[in-house]
């Protein structure tokens, strides 16, 4: 069975629309303006999700889905944000549990309306259930089982207060898989015919779970290389591969100043890789790498150190990919960047956008022990080439 990876784009867009509806419903309820910041569709293994959510506490609301979609949807707040949420709601603190349940019910209803429209079928929601959860227990039941699940995640942001939260939906992968295949089979087939089957973006369903291996393998290699180079103990904090509208990527990086390095990748897949540190982290890690204190925190010496670090991280990253995909990938020399985070990544997004509207973003936060430094790695592969490599992988 083949799935067009661009079908994930359609699903993503749908999730984004649903999230906008949820934001609208919540804005009406709370009298606060909410904006949808980011929506991503991810394909992740249970193991990766458990790691990604380790140490987080959440409260939220869950509903079961029947009809057009079977599965479960969850709306979750970080526990630290609950007071901010309650202060917005009628009834305030005294109403905690029922207020949160009401919010969740309204927002999830808005979210699911979009899907029902798309499917042309009603979706029945079971009564909302309030929950408090540690770590990955916030995720819909079943997300941790199996080795490849679709997960839709939206982050809404209240611009006047510090509040954001996520909506996760885990369609039972059987019926959902059929849905994706059913909606996209003609397109995938047409692409295969038109291009002799070589440039289609359709890949076997089974190889979707390979995506999460990609993210993980690359990140842990990069972390190992930092550890070897700096002698600092290094760990991979989060590593997930998501499918997002490319236009959302700069907003995700944010407007804080960042420093780091950018690389062009050649081979299969080609694309770009950006390693971005917030300024204080960049200065801290450069300082740890240099034999003497630099003249200025992010001057020439720090730039050289960060470029060298970027080189070893990128090598580790793409070696991981090449191993998983059985391809050969090379990278350009590092280009140092130091500016508004969103601005540094916008040319990469623009270049990829010439050929595609959605991109696979691999989010990785790598933390070094002993010094407070963390960075985000944005890997932006060409979707067609990635699909081709994944497709080849599944050939006997």
């Amino acid at each position, binding site marked *: 069975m083949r799935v067009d990876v661009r079908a994930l784009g*359609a699903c993503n*867009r749908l999730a984004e*629309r649903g999230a*906008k509806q949820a934001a609208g419903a919540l804005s009406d309820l709370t009298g606060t*303006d909410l*904006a*949808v910041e980011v929506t991503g569709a991810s394909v992740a293994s249970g193991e990766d999700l458990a790691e990604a959510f380790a140490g987080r506490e959440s409260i939220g609301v*869950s509903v079961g889905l029947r*009809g057009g979609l079977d599965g479960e949807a969850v709306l979750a707040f970080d526990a630290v944000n609950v007071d901010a949420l309650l202060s917005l709601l009628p009834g305030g603190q005294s109403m905690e*549990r*029922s207020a949160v*349940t*009401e919010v969740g*019910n309204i927002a999830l*209803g808005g979210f699911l*309306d979009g899907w*029902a*429209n*798309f499917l*042309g079928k*009603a979706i*029945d*929601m*079971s*009564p909302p*259930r*309030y*929950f*408090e*959860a540690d770590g990955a*227990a916030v995720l819909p039941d079943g997300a941790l089982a199996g080795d490849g699940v679709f997960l839709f995640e939206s982050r809404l942001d209240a*611009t*006047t207060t510090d509040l954001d939260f996520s909506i996760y939906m885990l369609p039972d992968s059987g019926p959902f898989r059929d849905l994706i295949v059913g909606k996209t089979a003609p397109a995938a087939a047409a692409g295969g015919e038109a291009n002799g089957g070589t440039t289609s973006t359709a890949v076997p369903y089974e190889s979707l779970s390979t995506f999460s291996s990609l993210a993980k393998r690359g990140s842990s290699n990069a972390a190992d290389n930092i550890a070897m180079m700096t002698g600092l103990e290094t760990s991979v904090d989060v590593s997930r591969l998501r499918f997002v509208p490319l*236009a959302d990527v*700069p*907003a995700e*990086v*944010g*407007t804080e100043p960042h420093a780091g390095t*950018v*690389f*062009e990748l050649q081979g299969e897949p080609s694309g770009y890789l950006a390693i971005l540190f917030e300024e204080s982290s960049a200065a801290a890690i450069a300082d740890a790498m240099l034999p003497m204190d630099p003249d200025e925190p992010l001057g020439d010496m720090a730039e050289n150190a960060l470029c060298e670090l970027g080189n070893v991280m990128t090598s580790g990253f793409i070696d991981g990919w090449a191993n998983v995909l059985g391809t050969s990938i090379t990278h350009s020399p590092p*280009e140092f*960047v*130091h*500016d*508004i985070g*969103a*601005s*540094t*990544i*916008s*040319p*990469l*997004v*623009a*270049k990829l*956008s*010439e050929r595609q*509207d959605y991109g696979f973003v691999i989010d990785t936060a790598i933390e070094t022990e002993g010094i407070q430094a963390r960075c985000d790695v944005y890997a932006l592969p060409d979707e067609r080439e990635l699909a081709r490599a994944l497709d080849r992988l599944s050939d006997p």
Partner: protein
Amino acid sequence: MTRSLSDDRPDEPADRTESDGDAVADADPAAVTGGAVPDDPGRIKVGVGELAVTSDDAVLTTSGLGSCVAVALVDERAGVRGLLHAMLPAGEEKPTAAARPAKYVDTGVDSLIAALDDAGADPRRLEARVAGGAEMLDLTDAVGPRNVERVGEVLDAAGVPVVASDVGDAVGRTVRFGPDGRLVVRAADGFERAI
């Protein structure tokens, strides 16, 4: 790991039904007017590949411009302003341009002028201010300068004069376009100037 559950609202299951039946592949109407989200009554955030128009006192903002270009148009007499945040120079002949015209300079400027016209501006009275189009990276063959060049061509063809610009170099920018018709450009180091 714990997950405690309780049923707080034993309501009947809510029935989510089809309302307008639009297909996901349709052009998103929000994208034409920018999909920009008013985050408070006085401020409208314009994202990458979006545009927005206002005829009141709202401040239009867009952040994190790198190689992307911001085009701010105003008809001062009508009190109508609009802001575009475009990513790539040319969308004409691109199949995706119809769904997301504001992604491209050419289709984006055309859409912005049309939206201003709809909001009561006279296209013959429009003035343009342009910011962004930085050459952030050597890796990405001058997409910023190509964006700026295309803005000049498209505005020229539309007969809209560029009264001020802050473009190029290798610097990220964030802009605010307020009711006075001036475009306030802020760089990563916090330096601000109004053009």
